[in-house]
């Protein structure tokens, strides 16, 4: 068997269509929406703000706290129970590890930067979309960062290495599948998130990671452009 053509007609190294917008949640200190295919992630950043309970405060460094959650109606099947689950808590934790390397936590001792990620609609790749949105929201909030973080899923569907799997590809039944989640610091090429489930050879995995890195560089361009656009349009308004 062979996976000849992708279900949605994309090239094997092509991501789904991406749409982004910042400042989508006015009450937050920074916010962004990141849409890839049918997966939509909102991220809101609050802080740095005082951390409670007080015993959690650390005079040496601040805390980056991620809260990833799918809205109850956002699953492709049954209703998702609101509130934290084992899955959402693990994803929150790995997103925190994916983002913290680019943030200087020493900049805000005793404080917390809260990042809330919410998904109203999903079609695979939610943690990657969440990371992209969160990274933009952190930049929008004016948190000093060494670089953005960009994220995409890669994987194997039967005999092909593919970028940005959709749900139908994750659920492919006619051959083996591997689903790999990557987050990349674009300026250094370092990985800050790597999770995989499925079956894949070492060579294929390395090939998939390289494809993912390339896709992340493209995603990073979109993220940066979206953040800049905000200020360009603002300048224009001021000139008027």
């Amino acid at each position, binding site marked *: 068997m062979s996976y000849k053509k992708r279900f949605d007609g994309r090239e094997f190294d092509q991501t789904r269509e991406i749409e982004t917008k910042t400042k989508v949640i006015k009450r937050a200190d920074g916010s962004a929406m990141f849409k890839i295919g049918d997966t939509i992630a*909102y991220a809101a950043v609050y802080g740095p703000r005082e951390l409670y309970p007080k015993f959690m405060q650390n005079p040496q460094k601040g805390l980056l706290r991620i809260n990833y959650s799918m*809205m*109850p*109606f956002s699953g*492709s099947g049954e209703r998702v129970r609101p*509130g934290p689950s084992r899955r959402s808590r693990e994803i929150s934790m790995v997103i925190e590890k994916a983002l913290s390397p680019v943030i200087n936590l020493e900049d805000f001792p005793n404080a917390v930067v809260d990042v*809330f990620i919410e998904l109203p*609609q999903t079609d695979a790749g939610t943690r990657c979309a969440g990371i992209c949105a969160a990274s933009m929201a952190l930049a929008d909030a004016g948190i000093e960062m060494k670089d953005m973080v960009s994220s995409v899923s890669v994987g194997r569907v039967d005999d092909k290495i593919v970028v940005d799997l959709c749900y139908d590809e994750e659920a492919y039944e006619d051959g083996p599948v591997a689903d790999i989640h990557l987050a990349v610091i674009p300026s250094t090429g370092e990985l800050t998130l790597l999770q995989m489930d499925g079956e894949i050879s070492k060579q294929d995995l390395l090939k998939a990671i390289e494809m993912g890195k390339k896709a992340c560089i493209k995603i990073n361009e979109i993220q940066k452009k979206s953040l800049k656009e905000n200020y360009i349009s603002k300048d224009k308004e001021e000139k008027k």
Partner: protein
Amino acid sequence: MKEENKNYIIKYLKEGRRFDGRKIDEFREVEIEYDISKSAEGSARVKIGGTEVLAGVKMAIESPYPDTPDQGNLMVGAELLPLSNPEFESGPPSIDSIELSRVVDRGIREAKAIDTKKLVIEKGEKVWSIMIDIVPINDEGNLFDAAGLAAIAALKTTKFPEYKDDKIDYKKKTNKNLPLNKVPIPITILKIGEYFIVDPSIEEQKNIDARLTVTTTSDGQLCALQKGGDMPLTSEDIEKMMDLAILKSGNLRKILSGDKK
């Protein structure tokens, strides 16, 4: 500090004004967008000024409640996401989110908005459950009215998923709409000093004496009430608040049917 803010608000109201330039009985702009989530069986986004609320409907097949074997089930949930307001905290549902979901639930349930008798597959055994979830994205006041409007807007777009051989295929939606009878619309009237205002900002909301959420159907019938706030209301107050709520619901009703899908 709080007292001072309140005095300022009242001083403005005395002159028939509010901080954001609105009249006492003026709503902010209301916008409804339908089908905002493909994952849901029905969904909508409501914006009232800067306040933005999403509502989504999921359906499932469950056993009916023992006291209503010949009716489908209805559930309304609301979560005050910390994403939408810096004062909301993560954790188990706060009393405010419980009140919000129950006020919306009561409006829909008591108006008999959904014809639950048409949701029975096998009496006493298998019925459709309708689960509405309300999620604020940005809270700039008046979540009650925004949530109630979003819930009914989401119900309007709800389509049954395909049900075959005892299984639901959520990927396939049918053309069959949810059987709706009535359109309940909640309007919250707030009392500050001797004044009655609608569609409060966060600041106004924090400085009220009392509030009354009045849910009405298109025929002007009342189907749910909820009083909130620390101060009592007189019968005269209540009458004035109901009149204002009925008047204001007409406009929201127009917006809801204008965007008809």
